[in-house]
């Protein structure tokens, strides 16, 4: 049987990867909901009310699974990683508690109003609740990313005790919160989430357009999704660059693994595609010469620290994996920029919704940001190995000492079965909801046409 360490790592990776399907969707959908309901409040058009109510229902489905799988994550630190919990509790625990008290409580309470409050509160209060839910989901991500970033670039702490009793103790709260990677990683994560949510909205809209169902509603939701997606896709270029820059400064071994760069004295290329042979420490592929040098140091001829600068036992083992995940993320990022810019251009030319082929692409493109979000995290987390807290605590030392392989095997099988069931149910219910479509108010479409027609001819609605 595999060791407790391997089993615990598989379990954590599996449960967090599964969990991470949902929060980015909630965060992205939250923003789309604010825009949709905001448009409803501003224009008074029933069509916007229809699509808001429709997406709230889907939001609830996604949010529910996100919460259920998220609680697992919180408690898994204690069950499987007791030594880690003791080591980082002073810091990580406070971020987690802050997440619960500042973000999650707000999100959950206002969600109740969002879902069940249409007839209980007035439009303004309902919109306020929508904003609070969206904001809560972003704050939630903020604290979690802060906690994770501290593991990547620890700051504002000192170590007390040694060996098994060692622990990190906070010395400067703000330095800990604003550790060198917090801001860059948070913005990268949030924009990735906006992409996940907005592409889901566009995917459903595109599918209706292809099927010639709810066409007006579908176009309206597609436009909302596109407006978020195009800005997010472009901004992701910037935050991605910032993130790579911090990695080059604070986690050189991770960056070297991402590009399969071994030799510290050499100018480092940037690969478009490639393959790393970690055994012979060789990377082959199509590359931009000096690309990584430019990314890290702003010069195409500067040498970049390679993997060999780090002793073998202190650097990630799965170099090719990190390389591939990182490159998949970047490729998808580029595709998303291209797709959204093209869609905006065609929308401006008033041709967008006639392009069947593009609608087919958008209907399927929902998986792209999902994959990018997943593989981006794989690169970040596997690239940090063998450390759980960078350069301070090894993953192999972080385990619960009294938990046995049998126990972890049991829970791993249990979670695998439960999550498979959960995912099947989720996909089934989501598909059913999409097939059912929004409940359409009377005159919603003619009213919508009238409004925008009037707007175009400079006769605002009275």
């Amino acid at each position, binding site marked *: 049987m595999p060791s407790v360490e391997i089993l615990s790592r598989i379990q954590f990776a599996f449960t967090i990867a599964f969990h991470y399907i949902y929060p980015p969707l909630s965060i992205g959908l939250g923003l789309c909901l604010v825009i949709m309901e905001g448009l409803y409040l501003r224009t008074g058009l029933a069509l916007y009310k229809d699509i808001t*109510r429709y997406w709230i229902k889907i939001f609830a489905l996604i949010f*529910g*699974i996100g*919460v*259920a*799988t998220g609680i*697992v994550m*919180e*408690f898994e*630190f*204690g*069950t*499987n990683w*007791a*030594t880690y*919990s*003791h*080591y980082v*509790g*002073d*810091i990580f*625990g*406070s971020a*987690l*508690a*802050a*997440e*619960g*008290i*500042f973000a*999650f*409580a707000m999100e*959950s*309470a*206002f*969600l*109740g*109003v969002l879902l*069940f*409050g249409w*007839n*209980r*509160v007035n439009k303004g209060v309902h919109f306020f609740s929508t904003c609070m839910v969206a904001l809560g989901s972003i704050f939630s991500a903020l604290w979690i990313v802060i906690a994770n970033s501290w593991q990547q670039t620890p700051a504002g702490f000192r170590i007390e005790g040694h060996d*098994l009793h060692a622990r990190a*103790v*906070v*010395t400067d*709260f703000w330095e800990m919160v604003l550790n060198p990677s917090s801001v860059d990683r948070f913005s990268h994560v949030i924009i990735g989430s906006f992409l996940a949510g907005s592409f889901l909205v566009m995917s459903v809209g595109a599918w209706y357009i292809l099927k010639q169902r709810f066409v007006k509603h579908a176009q309206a939701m597609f436009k909302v999704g596109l407006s978020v997606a195009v800005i997010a896709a472009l901004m992701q270029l910037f935050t991605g660059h910032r993130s790579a820059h911090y990695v080059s400064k604070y986690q050189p071994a991770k960056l070297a693994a991402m590009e399969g760069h071994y030799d510290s004295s050499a100018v480092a290329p940037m690969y478009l595609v490639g393959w790393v042979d970690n055994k012979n420490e060789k990377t082959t592929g199509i590359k931009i010469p000096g690309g990584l040098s430019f990314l890290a140091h702003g010069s195409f001829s500067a040498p970049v620290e390679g993997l060999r600068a780090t002793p073998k036992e202190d650097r990630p083992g799965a170099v090719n994996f990190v390389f591939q995940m990182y490159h998949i993320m970047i490729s998808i990022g580029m595709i998303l920029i291209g797709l959204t810019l093209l869609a905006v251009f065609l929308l401006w030319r008033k041709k967008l919704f006639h392009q069947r082929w593009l609608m087919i692409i958008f209907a399927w493109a929902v998986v792209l940001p999902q994959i990018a979000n997943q593989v981006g995290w794989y690169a970040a987390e596997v690239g940090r190995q063998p450390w759980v807290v960078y350069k301070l605590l090894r993953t192999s030392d972080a385990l*619960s*000492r*009294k*938990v046995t392989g049998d*126990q972890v095997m*049991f*829970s791993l099988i*249990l979670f695998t079965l*439960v999550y498979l069931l*959960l995912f099947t*149910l989720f996909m089934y*219910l989501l598909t059913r909801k999409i097939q059912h479509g929004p409940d359409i108010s009377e005159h919603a479409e003619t009213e919508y046409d009238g409004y925008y027609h009037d707007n175009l001819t400079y006769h605002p609605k009275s």
Partner: protein
Amino acid sequence: METILGLDLPTWWFLVIGGLITGYGVLDGFDLGAGALHLFFKKEESRRLVLNAIGPVWDGNEVWLVIAGGALFAGFPLVYGVVLSTFYIPFMLFLVALIFRAISIEFRSKEPWLWWRKMWDISYTVSSTGITLLLGLVLGNLIHGLPINKEHEFTGNLLTFFNPYAILIAFTTLSLFMLHGAIYLVMKTENRLYTRLTVIVNNCSKFFILCFILTSMATLIYVPHMTHQFKTHPELFVLPMLAVLILLNIKRNIDARKYYTAFLYSSIITACLLILFAVGLYPNIVISTTDPTYSISIYAAASSVKSLKIMLLIAAIGTPMVIGYTVFLFWTFRGKVKLNEMSY
């Protein structure tokens, strides 16, 4: 050591976590209890009504568990690791039950088919009951104490948890939550369902009183360290006496059909029992049955003074906000539950 209002920081933090767990017990207690009772209602409309009675609030209630967990992690990381890894299998089952409960509530109404709804109804009751029993089991073992060695490592096995005392506490927790949930539901319903619930409330109160008496006796006889505190501080005897008085008050209010007051008292008794438990433990959190000196005290487990101070500040800012949202939510959905097109 630094003190605030005469209490040292670990004690303050012990109080904060106690408060959060109490908040969780009072709030999620009633919706877990409602879940445990769910299958007693046979008609589809009744089941929908009792489900929607907790519909807008259950998720907010569960947040208290997340916050309490985070607070324990932050305040007493050692205990967080020891307790969760010791109760590895029970906690894994607990987490799975939480998942099933959430999806049962969420998925039940998504399809009209009889088998579909029946399946989620069963899953809802089984998971709600399971969560409550597991919480009670962990609580019972913490009151009773665990075989913990000098290195704070658990030396027992899975069967260690299933001692008679812990099992009794598990059922007492279940009876308390069922009573609490039944009173909540009776407040939220009308007509025939209301009449049916008044009978259920009565039965639940009998079940709880029986468990209460058994638990009191068992604690006095089998768990001497729980009563130790009372010998040195006789003024604390006011607490168990208060619990008995409140219990009588619950019964009296139920008989008089004053369910709002009864709900208030069933909330207070939940708090009262948890306070009794906390008083019995203090200043320890995990009691070792192997050797009392191996017990983990709040001082050994606490985070640094600086961290505790920051966290107290966060709690001081955050708690009123959380209470504010909770009040806003309950106020928005006050009164009898009605079904509409957005309902479950």
